């Protein structure tokens, strides 16, 4: 009897083990639990209409969905616009001036209220009411410019039908970038009764797979699953993942070395920040492919030259500077995170076609400088104080001095840099450093604000080169009106070359970013969208 009992016990244990093992094997990945992450700086806003930083956009990418959205994919593929809350991509008519979309039926906000077509209209109006930095993208909607001034009445160019879900947007003129702009977080749909103020502390109800659950400003914010995603929104919006974790807990850790340390000790699963440059080599050697990966946002780093003022009003001087810059040195200054580039459009941007008109050649640079023989050699070089941009500025000053300039360096705190060099009253705006990260993956986002003559502004000017070449201005304007297609992309590539022939900038590279996760996370499935950053819904346990 005792013997039989023992046999029975062994059998029971064996069956239990087999069941347990098969359960583990069948699931493939673990669902549920809490994803823990860290940010080095708190998002500017946790309000989709207001945020204009990578931190904010990453935080809300899978929380607030616009009518259109960017594909949850790495690299160039991530620049594709897909339908979000809308059933399909817009039907464009009336010479590119009318956009028609239809909202999916049966969608709900995370508080259970139905999402209506009119919520889109009120969300765009809210953009202007809260003076969002993103509002200029939508000023071409009929009536938007007036609404921006008065903040009263309505934007007449948006017509909605809550019964059919139909949304019609009329523009004052054709705008080839508008599809991309409709997929920005600024155009995310929030309930019509959302107060017209910064809602960071009390984020509006969500439409994506996650909703922001709690916010401790400057310290942490948490998410939980949107209760209406699985039942209502998710089945219709299949381009956005459902998410694998039930909760997400993001805390602020200002020191990036501490962030790395916590991941190495499996105390945090993910860091939103780039790994610090002095730890990069160690992390790459130890974790590349398993916990670390290099990602590619769409950006360009460059030195601008004021084309309207001596000595940089002389093409030969600008060309000499381009020849004098050695991108290999700058790659080292950026500790290997920089990939050399020599043109306006960065890799990953539609229209990108690699070329290099000015391969490093100091002898040629000196020859051009000698031919130009500029009478004014006292110049000021502007750079921001953030490392390693400050070192890039110091390198640039050294190169200019070597070339024959009497170059003075002005290093400005990164918080004020844009305002200082964008203000025409700032004296001696001769040349300097700058970088530009895309707002959306459309080449116009580089040419229009940075190089179009009409963009030269007395304050917050981004055309630091003060480039104003009428034939090129006309091309920018014409291309901006047309939708992007392979032909237009080829024209943008040509425009890129034409601007570099004018040597308005000395571009030197595109900076990479990184994904660093702890040993539990499946790195292969983590998505880094070049515009929005990491998709929180893509994180899952191994």
């Amino acid at each position, binding site marked *: 009897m005792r013997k039989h009992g023992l046999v029975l016990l062994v059998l029971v244990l064996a069956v239990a083990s087999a069941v347990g093992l098969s359960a583990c094997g069948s699931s493939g990945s673990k669902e549920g639990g809490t994803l823990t992450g860290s940010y080095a700086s708190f998002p500017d806003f946790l309000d989709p209409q207001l945020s204009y930083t990578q931190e904010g956009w990453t935080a809300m990418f899978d929380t607030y969905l616009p009518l259109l959205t960017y594909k949850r994919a790495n690299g160039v593929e991530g620049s594709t616009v897909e339908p979000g809350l809308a059933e399909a991509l817009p039907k464009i008519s009336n010479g590119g001036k009318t956009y028609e979309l239809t909202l999916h039926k049966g969608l709900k906000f995370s508080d259970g209220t139905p999402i209506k077509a009119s919520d889109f209209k009120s969300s765009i109006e809210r953009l202007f009411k809260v003076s969002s930095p993103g509002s200029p993208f939508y000023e071409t909607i009929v009536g938007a410019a007036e609404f921006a001034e008065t903040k009263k009445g309505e934007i007449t160019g948006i017509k909605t039908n809550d019964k059919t879900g139909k949304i019609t947007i009329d523009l004052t003129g054709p705008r080839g970038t508008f599809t991309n702009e409709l997929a920005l977080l600024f155009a995310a749909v929030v309930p019509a009764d959302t107060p017209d103020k910064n809602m960071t502390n009390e984020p509006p109800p969500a439409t994506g797979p996650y909703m922001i659950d709690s916010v401790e400003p400057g310290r942490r914010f948490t998410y939980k699953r949107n209760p209406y995603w699985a039942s209502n929104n998710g089945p219709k919006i299949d381009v956005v993942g459902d998410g694998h974790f039930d909760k997400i807990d993001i805390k602020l850790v200002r020191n990036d070395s501490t962030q790395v340390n916590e991941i190495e000790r499996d105390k945090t699963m993910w860091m939103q920040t780039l790994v*610090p440059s002095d730890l990069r*080599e160690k992390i790459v050697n130890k974790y590349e492919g398993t916990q670390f990966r290099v990602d590619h946002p769409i950006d360009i780093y460059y030195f601008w030259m004021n084309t309207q003022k001596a000595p940089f009003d002389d093409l030969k001087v600008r060309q000499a500077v381009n020849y004098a810059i050695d991108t290999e040195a700058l790659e*080292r*200054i950026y500790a290997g995170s920089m990939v050399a580039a020599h043109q306006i459009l960065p890799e990953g941007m539609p229209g990108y076609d690699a070329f290099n008109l000015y391969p490093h050649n100091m002898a040629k640079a000196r020859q051009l400088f000698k031919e130009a023989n500029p009478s004014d050699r006292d110049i000021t070089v502007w750079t921001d104080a953030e490392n390693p941009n*400050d070192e890039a500025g*110091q*390198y640039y000053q050294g190169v200019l001095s070597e070339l024959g300039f009497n170059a003075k*360096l*002005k*290093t400005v705190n990164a918080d004020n840099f844009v305002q200082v060099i964008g203000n025409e009253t700032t004296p001696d705006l001769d040349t300097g450093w700058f970088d530009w990260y895309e707002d959306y993956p459309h080449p116009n986002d580089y040419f229009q604000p940075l190089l179009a003559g009409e963009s030269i502004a007395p304050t917050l000017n981004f055309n630091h080169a003060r480039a104003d070449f009428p034939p090129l201005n006309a091309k920018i304007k014409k291309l901006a009106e047309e939708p992007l297609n392979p032909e237009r992309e080829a024209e943008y590539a040509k425009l890129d070359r034409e601007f570099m022939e004018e040597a308005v900038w000395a571009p030197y590279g595109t900076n990479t970013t990184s994904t660093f996760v702890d040993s539990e996370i499946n790195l292969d499935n983590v998505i880094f969208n070049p515009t929005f950053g990491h998709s929180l819904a893509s994180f899952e346990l191994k």
Partner: protein
Amino acid sequence: MASQPNAEEAAPGAAGPWRLAWRRLRRNRIALAFLGLFVLIVAFCLAAPLWANQVADTGPNDTHTLEKLGVGGETREVVSPSGKPIGPQWFEADGKFFLGADGRLGRDEMVRLMYGGRTSLLIGFSAAAIMTLLGTILGLLAGYYRGWTDTLIARTMDVIWAFPVTLLAIALGLALAIGGLRIGPIHLSGESIWIPILIIGFVFVPYMVRPIRGEVLSLREKEFVEAAIAQGASPLRVMFAEILPNMLSTIIVFFTLNVANAMLLESLLSFLGVGVQPPNTSWGTMIGSGFDLLTSAPLLTLLPGTMIFLTVLAVNVFGDGLRDALDPRAKVRVQVEARAGMAADEVSGGVAP
């Protein structure tokens, strides 16, 4: 043989106050040792051009990012492709990159340390001179004239004092870093080394005015001042020929302490990017730029930090010794020590310390 007590030592009143002070200072071995250390640091910094031209063969701002160094038949990169600067080479590369490269720009750390020290010392001494000069003049005027002059100066100082000194210096540094400073025909550009000198000199003035004013108020009541006034001496003569010489010991002691404070504040301002502007170097800017490589190259932060620590320590300890030597109250101690020394000599037949 027992040494004979010095005649002046036995009768301190026979020697002048400065000579007595020097004698007291000479006895303070610790103060003298730190004075020696300070002299060594100054000599190290003054030798910067010599080292840069004769040994390192590079200037403080010359970049060597892509250069390679031949060391004993081996080629070493000054900055690796991953941006790691070369470490100390000591004399392996004939003194080049003796302490390694300063960061990804590949500048010679030793050369920058020496030149940075010159900047830090220059700012320390110049700012201390400014605050001492201004503080002395304002303290003299306030203490001598009293009344509304005193009220005006004291309240103005109170206003400056009301701001935390560091925050005030940072705010001024930020404001002046871009546009520089324009006072009448004088224009200082934002990257001028005189900007941090003036800022530091200015923010510390109240800390000098108050004690000077207090001492002037006390000295003003002394008989020799009354006598000078009775003889018809002008206020300026009374202030600068009668009162000032009697405060010199205080001023000298304050000056040394001001140097230390000024150097510390300069380091902080430069670390925060509102003091010495790149590519110029000071120990503070070196800490700031080395801080980004703290994990992989801690020496870049530790070296300038140690130099600041040693200099400030040397100046402070020497300043303390100087105060002991110049402080009249120390006379009592000297006399007691002298008597004790003589007694010890009589007992043991040893040499008095």
